[in-house]
């Protein structure tokens, strides 16, 4: 295990630029994909964008929340940008749907990207069979999907405007009862996703043992 952890650490240090790119790309692309999903699902372009004073709001929360343990979950709900569509058919208008760019979720997605990049890098440098590589790809992709899904930040006023990850499922037609039941499982699903990714990385590192890390295409194809 020590050799595996050492290999992972060396991989992180050696390949940090590529992993940084993976992290940023994951965080950015997830936002783009969610916006595309909203536009496609509702067949309409967003009509408003609102920028929030995230640093100021975080400072306000820290200053006005007595207990340290209360602060992270409240900050985690703070938005940086909101892009959505207003419905003016009734009253002064209401936000029909929106995508919220939430820094805390961006961090999670960034970490997810880094882990996915690390797993991909280790798999590429591993002299494993085609079947094994498919298995690694499946595990990495599955873990990433689970985490990304539970970090969706779309909101749809159907849920009394409650921003929740199951809005994405509801948008795809999942029943209300099922969605609400799954909502409670969100953290568990995210943990499972991360666990699968980390297990994949550890497994790859253990397989490679002390062999030098090769950031090149495999030679067994």
């Amino acid at each position, binding site marked *: 295990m020590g050799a595996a952890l050492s290999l992972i650490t060396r991989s992180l240090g050696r390949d940090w630029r590529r992993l940084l790119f993976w992290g940023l790309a994951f965080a950015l692309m997830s936002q783009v994909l969610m916006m595309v999903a909203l536009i496609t699902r509702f067949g309409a372009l967003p009509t408003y964008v609102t920028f929030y004073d995230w*640093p100021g709001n975080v400072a306000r929360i820290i*200053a006005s929340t007595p207990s340290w343990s209360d602060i992270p979950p409240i900050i985690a*709900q703070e938005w940086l940008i909101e892009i959505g569509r207003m*419905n003016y058919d*009734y009253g002064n*208008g209401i936000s029909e749907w929106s995508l919220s760019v939430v820094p805390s979720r961006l961090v999670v997605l960034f970490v997810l990207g880094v882990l996915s990049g690390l797993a991909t890098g280790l798999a590429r440098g591993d002299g494993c069979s085609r079947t094994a590589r498919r298995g690694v790809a499946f595990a990495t992709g599955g873990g990433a999907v689970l985490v990304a899904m539970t970090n969706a930040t779309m909101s749809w006023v159907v849920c009394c405007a409650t921003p929740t990850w199951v809005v994405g499922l509801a948008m795809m037609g999942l029943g209300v*009862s099922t969605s609400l039941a799954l909502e409670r499982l969100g953290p568990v699903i995210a943990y499972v996703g991360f666990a699968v990714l980390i297990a994949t990385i550890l497994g790859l590192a253990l397989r490679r043992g002390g062999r030098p890390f090769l950031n090149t295409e495999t030679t067994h194809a």
Partner: protein
Amino acid sequence: MTFPTLRSSFLAAGMATLASTVSAETISIAIGHQSMCTDTYTAGVVVKELGLLEKNLPRDGKYADVDYDVSWADYSSGGPITNQMMANKLNFGVMGDYPLIVNGAKFQETDSLRTLYVAGTGYNLKGSGNSIVVPVDSDIYSIDQLAGKEVSTPVGSAAWGMLLKAMQDNNISSADYALKNQSPAVGAANIAAGKIDAHSDFCPWSEIMEFRGTGRKIYDGSETGVPYLHGVVVRQDFAEEYPEVVEAFIKAVYQAGEWIREDPIKAVSDMEGWTGVEKEVLYLYFSKGGHLTLDPTIKDAWVEALKFDHEVLAKEKAIPPLDFTAWITEDYARAAFADMGVDYEAEKAITVDPKENNAGLPMEVWHARDGISSYPDMATFLTALAEMTSTGAKLNASYVYDSETGLKLFGKTAFWVKTDAGYATFLRKGEAESHAAANGGAVISFEDAIADFTTEG
């Protein structure tokens, strides 16, 4: 850097950027309200537009040198208001019963933050305000016909809670109908387009659909027998630091109610301009005999209703427990009432039941040019309508009362029954038919009732 040092740094940074808490000279007061929820208006748009809070804010003692920065944020539902209160971007929140419950429970789930439920805004004793609507041309006329159908509602709202109870009361299990999660605006659009079998919503969406001629009410929240109420929550830290400001807010709520009662027609006309909701719809709520009783007092029955609501939410959404004793306080309302010279206990003891309160109230016609006129009985009411329609006059709306519940209705959406004794109006078709059968009468249309009084030439 140690935690205390780090915290001090954040405190300093926070204080520098804060808009909602206090500097030495300025107290910022941020209120979250809902301009598309009629029952919140007396703590929302009315207080905001009339500047009632500013008129009541304390100016002496420790407030002698204080400046106030009052800001209002409009939301389409109560959920986001709670989130903003958690982040201390809002001090006050105005919302309906179910979102109120969530607010109190979510705050009590934290280690250090709490809200207080300090006042009501208004209520309907039996639960009117929430209702189930079907497309106007639908062949569905009662809730038992919803078995096997698709029903939408904004899940988590008071209307959702009402729908669950209504279905349970009528022995329709959740497996017997397809529940869709739908926003008020989308639900209303789907009803207009006939894309959904039924939609359950909160005030005033059902009446908007009726007024626009797209929807027909088949079930009124009053049938659940559970009071429907709205109220004001405030962050406890704010309330403890500035109790006089909370009292000022409650005084403003009371005065907003007085302002509406004084001249409902002007009030709804003004409110239409502020909210975009048609004044004829608002009149159904805010006029004498309307759905909404404006009353900031916290009655024992309301506490019981909120406990019932919490049980529903706990069962469906697994929300945290809520200590009602710690959450609800009448102290601020009592102090505010005492300051205004109003007897809190006397007002608290008054409960308005539409069935009793609206008995004998006159029918009304809203003439586009001449305004609202009242008629003591059906004959004069229908005669007036016949004369107006024969001259081609533009009528905005007409109002009658449900014979069963006493609820105020649009004349055009009521079910009319003609018997030897005269005319009666009903909210639901089934009761109209029963009344007609029992009295040897017939269910007729609104137009037929008017036609009976139309004279040729």
